[in-house]
């Protein structure tokens, strides 16, 4: 089972804080890889909030192809944050030609696009780059989105973090998702590494998704750009959230009702019973069935944690106004925020969604038995 750690802070923090928290949960991951999602970026990216940032790993020929492609598309490089590895190569980590974190100015032709159209154009650009590199494996792209950096690498999280120099201030951010991999596949594929990202939404999960294949088959049949790949059975959690928020225009509070709907007897006295019954019926193909804890970030910079319907995975949320952490284990939380009121730590149960909003003032608990914030 992988270990998850996430931070949401009013003041920018280093991703190494999250990686160190992962390290104290070492018993739960085997050091086979680390994945990071950073948003609400500080440093030089603070002034480039609208510029899409490309994150990925490239070979030298891949870099050449990248530059040609971006130029042909009309992108202009705005800022390049080189990541220069230092020290010895960590165990298991392959030697890479280039880790890329680059902000681009979008093509002039995008000026007339709506925000939604721009988002779709960013998504399509990422997919094109991803597809370009699938055969030759010279291009690996994790995200291409404003205010977003993703770093994924094979190896022990702490060693990789130090090797890549991730404590540098340019990469500090206010939202961090970090996963320490427990690798269950002999061949490690970076596209199978959490967190997963699509159009401003990112999630990471631990546990096996036993309903993966039917959900994958359904999502792939929807013809929605980006619903592809699925090197990990957890990628569908990100896409279900995307589908619920962006396609169905549901509030986040409905996500839990989509993936783990209430049982009939639990729904009996619910004020939104009629809606929830219908939702359960029409979204039946998106019901998850595994032991899963999902931690993620929303486009509005909220951070959340939800559990499977049997609450078979650990997970805790705690902190203080201005700084909250979501962690697989309490020891991770203890390391990251030792000076919090521990009596207010919250372990979401099978009906709960725990949310910390962009103001980072409190942990809001939304229970499935409560009314949904529906508009009509």
């Amino acid at each position, binding site marked *: 089972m992988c270990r998850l750690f996430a931070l949401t802070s009013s003041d920018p923090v280093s991703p190494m804080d999250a990686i160190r928290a992962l390290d104290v949960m070492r018993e739960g991951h085997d050091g086979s890889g680390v994945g990071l999602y950073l948003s609400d970026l500080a440093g030089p990216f603070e002034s480039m909030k609208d510029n899409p940032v490309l994150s990925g790993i490239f070979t030298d020929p891949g870099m050449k192809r990248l530059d040609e492609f971006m130029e042909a598309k009309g992108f202009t490089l705005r800022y390049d944050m080189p990541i220069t590895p230092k020290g010895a190569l960590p165990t298991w980590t392959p030697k890479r030609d280039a880790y890329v974190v680059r902000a681009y100015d979008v093509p002039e032709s995008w000026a007339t696009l709506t925000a939604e159209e721009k988002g779709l154009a960013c998504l399509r650009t990422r997919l094109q780059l991803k597809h370009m590199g699938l055969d030759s494996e010279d291009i690996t792209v994790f995200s291409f989105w404003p205010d977003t950096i993703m770093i994924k690498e094979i190896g022990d999280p702490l060693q990789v973090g130090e090797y890549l120099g991730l404590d540098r201030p340019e990469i500090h951010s206010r939202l961090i998702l970090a996963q320490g991999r427990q690798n269950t596949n002999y061949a490690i594929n970076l596209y199978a590494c959490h967190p997963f990202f699509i159009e401003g939404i990112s999630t990471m999960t631990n546990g096996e998704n036993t*309903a993966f294949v039917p959900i994958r088959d*359904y999502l792939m049949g929807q013809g929605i750009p980006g619903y592809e790949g699925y090197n990990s059975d957890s990628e569908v959690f990100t896409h279900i959230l995307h589908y619920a928020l962006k396609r169905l225009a549901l509030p986040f509070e409905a996500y839990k009702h989509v993936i783990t709907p209430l049982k009939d007897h639990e729904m009996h006295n619910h004020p939104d019973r009629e809606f929830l019954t219908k939702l359960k019926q029409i979204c039946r193909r998106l019901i998850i069935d595994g032991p899963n804890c999902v931690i993620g970030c929303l486009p509005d910079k909220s951070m959340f944690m939800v559990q499977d319907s049997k609450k078979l995975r650990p997970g805790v949320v705690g902190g203080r106004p201005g700084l909250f952490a979501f962690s697989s284990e309490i020891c991770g939380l203890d390391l990251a925020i030792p000076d919090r009121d521990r009596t207010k730590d919250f372990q979401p149960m099978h009906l709960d969604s725990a949310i910390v909003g962009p103001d980072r003032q409190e942990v809001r608990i939304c229970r499935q038995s409560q009314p949904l914030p529906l508009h009509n």
Partner: protein
Amino acid sequence: MSAVAAITPSQLSIKDLPWQIVWNKERCTLCGQCCAVCPMQSLELGTFRKRSIKVAAGFKNKPENEHTIYYGIRQRTAPHQACVGCGTCSMVCPNDAILPMHSDEKDKLRFHINLGGQPRTRGGRRNDNGSVLDQIKFIRISMLTDPALDSGRHEFDLKTLIGRVQSPLDGLATIKEHGWAPPVREIYPLMIGSMSFGALSPNMWEGLQMGVAYLNEELGMPVRICTGEGGCPPRLLRSRFLKYVILQIASGYFGWDEIIHAIPDMKEDPCAIEIKYGQGAKPGDGGLLMWHKVNKLIAAIRGVPPGVSLPSPPTHQTKYSIEEAVAKMIQSMSMAWGFRVPVYPKISATSTTNAVLNNLCRNPYAAGLAVDGEDGGTGAAYNVSMNHMGSPIASNIRDAYLTLCAMGKQNEVPLIAGGGIGKNGNLAANAASLIMLGASAVQIGKYVMQAAAGCVGSESDRCNVCNIGVCPKGITSQDPRVYRRLDPEKVAERLVDLYVSFDTELKKVFAPLGRSTSLPVGMSDALGIADKDAADRLAIKYVV
């Protein structure tokens, strides 16, 4: 046989028959019950003359003949009286003195069972014991990477949906606009398939209906039963139990006068309407109720004269195209109940299943598709249709499911699979396989007859005389002297046993796969088979 008598071509010896009656003179009490009960009148009381030669010791006296007479059982050999191996004689024999034994070679009867140019008709299933479903294994066992569930202690939701399930976008739009939503029923995924009142005896029907009511109202299992084409008893139409019933309309429209006239009096809507276009046991053939079984009661319910054979046409004769046959009939039946009742077609599995499915997907009123495979059973059909026509259910349902996936409409048109599920007794395993191949529900008929009423028919051509109304167990007979053998209460009890044990077994399959919160429709990653070609065809794992 006289020494000068001609041997006719169809004169058969006992050895030529598929079943030989072994009778034990020493144990027989000559009670005659075996002869009385034999559905085929294969047995008769016989008088046997026996000669013994008495030879005295020495040479003084010549040997003498001694003639004695004894009584016993004689097996008839006329093709229409050939033993069918039902074993009812053994069942009633107080001394276990009689038993039908299967011939050690292929019978010669099969070449003569068309006397008068009439090909053989029979009931039962395809005479083939093979089953791809039996070969499928469940291989994705949760081991350490995720905890296996406890089939006895965890909560399982095994229900499924029948009815047109809207896409999430359409469904939310319907809520917003307060529009019409297609009716959807949440039911138990093991349905009792269509067996008509007429094909089944009144006692069998009553037993099944009682069992279904008990399962629903006492055990909370939403089991549904389909009427088949033969109408529905008027009292049931006007009872609250109608909601557990799927009314079938087929090409003969038998019983539909009664049903239509009962609509204003109905207290409940039926669960659904099944439009039968085909049947797995005899694809391309309509229903067939032979005259033997059309008594006054059956005739009254079906709205026909008694004592005539009732062959339904192979197609709905008033329709000439798929658009008409499907769209208009679905529309008409939906309209009859104010669009509150799901209406879905049933077809026999065929290489053209996907064409039908594509058509249904474009019809927002189509509530599902029932596909009946070649191993389905029937009360009456031509032997050639049963043995040689049709398509296996496994690949057919898989193709249909993958077609739905490609359209992004998986489970929106629920697929109901039937045909040979549990034919070798592996009901839960076969049902789970079909669900994971893509069926939203499965339906059984023959298995219900075997488990709930003791049907002795088999794929080794045992019994299988459902068509002529002589069922030794009273399951498919319309003769009160025969069907009174069957106690409806006991049928109901056994039906409940069947469902409760099935439910436990289904959980025993799903729990180790880590599935409990929803029926694992299409969870093909859990399936494996030790046959490479079958694995490729079904897009499941090849395991050896």
